[in-house]
């Protein structure tokens, strides 16, 4: 059975159709990319999967469980985590707290225990604080643990966002333009990093990207959106030569 399955997902903003008849099947362990020109509806697809928007029509299943209609935090709990196009860290909180917040559903103590710092509080806090620090170490961010997130350099902020997403314990990771604002050398490193993260955490990854280099380099399958509609899908090599894709990116007659 597919890990994630989207059937005929359609979404309207008022009268505007942002995504129409979107279908996707992700097998466990796959790395799939969504590409398309600006405004093609790529981020909207992410927002539909993660419950930020509720799909007007269609259904999305994770491990056979319906996602449409659930709140974002419930969907996260089922095992989907994401990053954002424009970094959305908790800027005025420490790097450690950024990660600890993502463990929200793992910490098991009641509100009474939190008010009085009794019972399971101490043991649970200790366990997950150490897990958070281990995770940060894994991402070479532990030396910044008590810095405010906003004080990190850009590249570290991107890494922290991925670390934070992983703390929620996802099966599926959604990356929204992870290479935005990076130079070719950094993109090269990012590609290795993504492959490494997938292997280490046993993840399935769906990513949105404009950088063809990255997309063609690491994605096993691609899906191309334009004006909310899927215009092509297939292996990177197929997509590269697909006439409709060239048309969408370069305009009509762009293939000449």
């Amino acid at each position: 059975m597919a890990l994630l399955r989207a059937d005929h997902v359609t979404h309207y903003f008022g009268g505007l159709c942002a995504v129409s008849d979107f279908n996707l099947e992700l097998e466990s362990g796959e790395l799939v990319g969504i590409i398309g020109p600006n405004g093609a509806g790529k981020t909207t697809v992410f927002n539909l999967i993660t419950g930020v928007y509720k799909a007007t029509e269609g259904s999305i299943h994770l491990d056979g469980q319906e996602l449409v209609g659930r709140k974002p935090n419930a969907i996260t709990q089922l095992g989907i985590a994401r990053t954002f196009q424009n970094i959305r860290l908790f800027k005025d909180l420490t790097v450690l707290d950024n990660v600890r917040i993502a463990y929200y559903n793992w910490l098991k103590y009641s509100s009474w225990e939190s008010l009085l710092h009794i019972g399971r509080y101490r043991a649970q806090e200790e366990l997950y604080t150490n897990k958070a620090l281990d995770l940060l170490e894994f991402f070479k961010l532990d030396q910044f643990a008590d810095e405010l997130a906003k004080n990190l350099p850009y590249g570290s902020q991107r890494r922290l966002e991925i670390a934070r997403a992983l703390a929620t314990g996802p099966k599926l990771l959604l990356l929204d333009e992870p290479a935005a604002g990076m130079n070719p050398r950094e993109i090269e490193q990012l590609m290795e990093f993504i492959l490494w993260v997938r292997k280490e955490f046993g993840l399935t990854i769906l990513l949105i990207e404009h950088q063809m280099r990255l997309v063609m380099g690491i994605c096993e399958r691609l899906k191309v959106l334009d004006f909310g509609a899927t215009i092509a899908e297939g292996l990177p090599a197929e997509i590269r030569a697909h006439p409709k894709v060239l048309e969408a990116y370069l305009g009509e007659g762009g293939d000449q």
Partner: protein
Amino acid sequence: MTYFFQQSLNALQLGSIYALIALGYTMVYGILTMINFAHGDLFMVGAFFTFIAAVYLGLPFVPTLVVSMIVVGLLGVLIERVAYRPLRNAPRVSAVITALGVGLFLENFTLVFYPYPQHIPTLIQNTTWNIAGVSISSLQIIIILLSIGLMVMLDLIVRKTMVGMAMRAISWDKAIIPLMGVPLNLIVSATFALGTSLGAAAGTMYALAFPVIDPYMGIMIGWKAFISAVVGGIGNIRGAMIGGFILGTVEIMVAAFMPSTYRDFVAFALLLVLLIFRPYGILGKPRPQKV
């Protein structure tokens, strides 16, 4: 039925005063996304300058109105320059708290000079006509017409002049528009001048209609005008006018047909109900959240 028409007239009078004050809140909010909590107190200062102009200078109605509008308009510009501008890039609440501080300052400063409520002398010979059992006073007519006149004027300024266009542009995007050569500070000053002088006009008219004034009169009326602005959709000028008339009507009608102590309760309960169904007010639009 006559009673109803009589009360409608009163509602129109109170509503136009709320609407004028609400405009000041909404204009400043539109441009700086800041709630100027001192605005209700500027309304009070307007009423006091009417008193000063009438008693010490012996001026008739129109000059007192002009004096109080100009003085308070300048005061508004000064307050923005001294207290709010340094905080433009500070956390948003700092500016709000500063505004609360400025409001308290205005109240208590006035209190030092006028510890007791003051009586406004009669500035307009009030004649009352009786039309089909409804008594209409010339004062009511003047207040309603003048308020509507001022609102039409403001609407024209905002829609038809360069300054108005700049105001709308800045409320659209505060970061980009100044880069296109629109002088942000000048436009903000103009907004404060317009908004607070309308508040002062409301103060003058309120003082004529209810001729006992005190330094704390601006608190409750200010909050209610603010609520009017929210009901209409804060940041929206026409919304503020509509909101003012709605609140005026609700208050007068509740007081007319129920025990008057229920007035605040019903007004605020209605506000809550409205916000449940239209969370962004009557004419307000939700700001799209980008994810």
